[in-house]
């Protein structure tokens, strides 16, 4: 046909390229949507995954721009491994307080609160661990590994105050605050690395590069959690949302204010503790008071609850200047 002859060679090539590109696009698209087809090599190491680091064409092609995007892309499994590494860093720096009764009691309160949170189940579940330190502090690692120091236990006068501290940490887990601590640059690097991995079928060198980025992510988050905290905005959210969890379980939320007052009383300038990792207790008290506005007045805590606190944690809630 004449028309065919009119089409120049170059253009025929272009058409061929368009066809090939489109077919490829369809294939990639189907691979992404259809798990069965994804096996044909697009998604190395887990396709849509949770195996670990998520690698596929779509993931690699874009740059994660915001914490919200990062949260969406980070799977429950990845969060679990990130949390483990952060928790290992915390355990590396602190000693363990092994008293079985105290640990069991903290676990009972913590697990009960976690079950009533907005994220009652995490990939690996929640664990509550006491650290042997005079510091008044508590940390939450992504995925639900929560630490509380002996100093913090001592700053609590009753179970409801201790519950307030643990509920605050649970909010950091349920709202996945840990991911927000990772620097933006890590995400970008991670994306580049994923392309590299996908292209080469995950050779050893690529794993090493991925481990490097993982290590940087761990450092970002672990350092912030231990030295600077989650930042004003996220801490405020944790204080406010903790009240919701406390009310669901039946704890007296006004005790959250009292524990903050105790912390203020016990504040030692320059010590590496909550004073560094959390906003000023005065500001935090304001947040909690605002959240509690319009709620019924404080009611007395039943004696059984007071008693079990005393027997599990003798020495807690004693007068300030020990």
């Amino acid at each position, binding site marked *: 046909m004449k028309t*065919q002859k009119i089409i120049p060679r170059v253009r*025929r090539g272009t*058409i061929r390229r368009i066809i090939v590109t*489109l077919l490829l*696009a*369809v294939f990639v*698209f189907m691979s992404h*949507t259809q*798990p069965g087809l994804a*096996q044909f090599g697009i*998604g190395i*190491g*887990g396709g*849509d*995954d*949770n*195996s*670990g*680091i998520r*690698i596929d064409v779509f993931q690699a092609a874009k740059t994660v721009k915001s914490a919200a995007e990062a949260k969406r892309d980070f*799977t*429950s*499994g990845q969060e679990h*491994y990130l949390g*483990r*590494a952060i*928790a*290992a*860093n915390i*355990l*590396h720096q602190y000693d*363990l307080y092994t008293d079985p009764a105290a640990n*069991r009691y903290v*676990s*009972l309160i913590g*697990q*009960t609160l976690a*079950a*009533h949170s907005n994220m*009652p*189940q995490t*990939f*690996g*579940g929640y*664990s*509550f*661990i006491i650290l042997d330190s005079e510091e008044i502090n508590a940390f939450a690692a992504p995925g639900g*590994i929560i630490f509380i120091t002996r100093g913090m236990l001592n700053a609590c006068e009753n179970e409801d105050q201790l519950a307030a501290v643990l509920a605050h940490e649970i909010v950091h887990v*349920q709202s996945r605050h840990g991911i927000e601590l990772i620097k933006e640059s890590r995400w970008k690097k991670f994306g580049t690395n994923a392309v590299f991995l996908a292209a080469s079928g995950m050779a050893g060198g690529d*794993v090493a590069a*991925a*481990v490097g980025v*993982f*290590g940087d992510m761990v450092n970002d988050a672990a350092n912030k959690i231990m030295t600077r905290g989650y930042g004003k905005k996220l801490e405020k959210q944790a204080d406010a949302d903790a009240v919701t969890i406390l009310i*669901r*379980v*039946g704890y007296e939320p006004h005790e959250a204010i009292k524990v903050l007052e105790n912390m203020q009383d016990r504040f030692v300038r320059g010590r590496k503790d909550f004073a560094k990792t959390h906003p000023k207790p005065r500001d935090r008290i304001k947040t909690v008071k605002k959240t509690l506005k319009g709620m019924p007045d404080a009611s007395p805590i*039943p004696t*059984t*609850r007071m008693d079990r606190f005393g027997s599990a944690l003798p020495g807690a809630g004693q007068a300030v200047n020990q």
Partner: protein
Amino acid sequence: MKRLHVLWITLATTGLVVSVYAKKPDEAKPTEPAEVALPQVSVQVHRAALRQSPGFLSEVAATLSYGDRIGIAEKQEDWRRVEAKEPSVSGWMHASALTLRTFDLTAGETDVEKTASKQEMTLGGRGHGRGFSEQIETEFRTENEELEDAYKLLDQLTQDPRRQVSRTEMLRFMREGGLAKGGGGS
């Protein structure tokens, strides 16, 4: 001319395939007729309990594993009544344990159950014998030897049964302390 035809056919096929696959699964509506397939989701936690009624303190009807595909039959706030085909079970799960993602657990990794008792969970990682996240952790641990003791301690602590609380223990703890009972997890 022939080439142009091929181009148009390709374009049409592309459009058709994309429009078919681009359809996103919708959330379940209880009013849907029974013959309509339930919207499918995956379990994204290691072990997930199916409860007899919405609420964490409700009795456990069955347990599902990571990656299991299930259909959403009903919604009640943050709780979803789900139905699984293999094994054929149904019950309530908290929405946070579910995801729209699809997980491929291939031959080496299908048996999440078996690996559950091991210190490390082996998940995902198609064709690589073990999960990519786990592989990264292993490499990370090799590179950060100083953390090894802490990691071992962490495994002990997170697997310590005294740090976990059963439904019965939780109910007793709440009752004895004069705390709210029932409901839960909103």
